[in-house]
């Protein structure tokens, strides 16, 4: 069976005044109908990897890959319009901050319906019904009311649920979530994750979950990729986190304070130059 997503030697680079900056330097992985976590420190290229898959990289950037395929379809070779039709329909992406990711001047319901209407021929009433159903699915209590609200009128947690509803309303097969909860309160964070988890399980989607929180990723995903300076330095099953080999991963695990722990000072990560190679 072909995997849902195949990434081979993906590279993303940006021209800047001081030369080319390689944000992603040869990332390889495949994804089935599973939950894949990507962790790594800030600037390690997690988001750019996700965006490259979606085709949301800024225009001036360079993307190359030996293979970047969604099922059988080669994403890099297809036409822009074809790729657009995939976006939101088959592949969807949730962004980090709901406050900035929703159009501030458009009611929430219309934003959800817009996704539907772009990809499917549906009547207004049907679109509305499905949008409401979706809002319900992400556990929004009063969908009818929320439907007509504007983004600034809802809390962060609700906003993130709406983002999820908006992206999942067409029933994509692959969902990329780029730090979907880091803007939220710890307590709310878990509720949102629970919803996401439920939807993945129920709909059998593939999920790429990007985060910098190693502990969160390992408790939520099946498999974890650890990125460092644009490369995947380690890939492991979530359950075997403690067996991580790479010194970076180990360092990362180590330096987190624990409620129970009492290590003073905390061990810190000594970055080695050879990790970058």
């Amino acid at each position, binding site marked *: 069976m072909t995997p849902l997503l195949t990434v081979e030697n993906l590279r993303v680079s940006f021209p800047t005044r001081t030369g080319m900056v390689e944000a992603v330097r040869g990332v390889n992985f495949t994804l089935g109908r599973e939950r894949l976590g990507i962790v790594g420190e800030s600037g390690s290229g997690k988001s750019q990897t996700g965006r490259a898959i979606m085709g949301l990289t800024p225009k001036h950037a360079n993307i190359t890959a030996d293979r970047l395929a969604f099922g059988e379809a080669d994403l890099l070779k297809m036409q822009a319009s074809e790729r657009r039709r995939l976006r939101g329909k088959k592949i969807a992406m949730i962004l980090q901050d709901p406050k900035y990711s929703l159009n*501030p001047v458009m009611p929430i319901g219309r934003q959800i319906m817009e996704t539907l209407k772009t990809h499917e021929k549906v009547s207004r009433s049907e679109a509305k019904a499905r949008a409401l159903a979706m809002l319900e699915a992400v556990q929004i209590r009063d969908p009818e009311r929320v439907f007509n609200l504007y983004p600034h*009128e809802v809390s962060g947690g609700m906003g993130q649920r709406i983002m999820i509803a*908006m992206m999942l309303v067409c029933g994509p097969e692959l969902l990329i979530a780029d730090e979907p909860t880091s803007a939220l309160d710890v307590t709310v964070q878990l509720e949102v994750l629970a919803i996401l988890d439920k939807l993945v399980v129920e709909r059998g989607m593939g999920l790429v979950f990007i985060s910098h929180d190693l502990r969160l990723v390992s408790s939520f995903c099946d498999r974890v990729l650890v990125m460092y300076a644009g490369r995947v330095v380690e890939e492991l099953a979530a359950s075997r986190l403690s067996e991580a080999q790479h010194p970076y991963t180990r360092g990362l695990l180590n330096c987190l304070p624990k409620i129970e722990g009492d290590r003073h000072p905390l061990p810190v990560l000594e970055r080695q130059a050879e990790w970058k190679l």
Partner: protein
Amino acid sequence: MALMETKIEARRSGARASALIFSLLRFLLTVVTTYLGLLAVTFFIGRVVPIDPALAIVGDRAPAHVVERVREELGLNLPLYEQFVIYIRQALTGDFGTSVLTTNPVMTDIRRVFPATIELATVGTLIGAFFGVPLGVLAAVKRGSFADQIVRIIGLIGYSVPIFWLGLLALVLFYAKLKWVAYPGRVDIVYEYSFTPVTGFFLLDSAMQRQWDVFRDVFRHIILPGALLGYFSLAYISRMTRSFMLNELSQEYIVAARAKGLSETRIIWFHALRNAAVPLITVIALSYAGLLEGSVLTETIFSWPGLGLYITNSLQNADMNAVLGGTIIIGSVFIAINILSDVLYRILDPRTRSR
């Protein structure tokens, strides 16, 4: 979770009622103080001007004793503060005195000439917005491209060229040489007495009365000054549009819209522009207000019988009542337009609605 949300709601609506009253009071205060300030400054200017207002009434060749008598009639011999009180009292009732130049009450004159200015400024703004917004959007979308440079240069020239100079050149070219447009004034003398304006906006009036030949003629008169003003407002509007669009296009919700699979056209013209429209309204309103005033020079060149010309003429004839009345009216319109743009802003931007 739900508890928190309802709390936020409750807090908001509670604050809303008092905030409304507060902002209303504040707003009234602003208008009143601004207006009083306007009056004070105009009064001051009126008294400081080294022109004897009495001269304006009696004309150049009047004998001395007539001038003296008129000075007393005008109350110019009263102490300054008494004059000021009288001035304020009259102005607040909309009485700016009588124009010595036209012998009409200043308000009557303004009511007659102002529509001409408004019509001209409106045409100018419409032209400016109609071309300026798309150009600005184009420049922002194709930023750094050749098209962007062209739009930028068009805009910059608009900012740099003396309007009275360009107006003169345009008049020579389009009226004298090519004979494409009509001049001077608002309508040909032929129609002056067959056409009775109702609203004072000639385009509107002639269209409503289905006098299409008049409409055509009015159009031929207004198009050149209108286009000229339109160019200036275009320069401003296109630049601001570009900058607002750049700002919107770099927002995350644009990325989100792309992630939804929307077409670029829809993203640009619907999502981004709809957001850019919020500040753009203020810009267009300001440019409109600017044109109302900026028409002073244009009206001079095109003999356009509007407020600008009225004020300049009055100024040259020491008709201070008319000058100050006109100034106050333009000032009031400025205030009104600002308020209006504020209201529009609130309507367009849902974020400000609940405040």
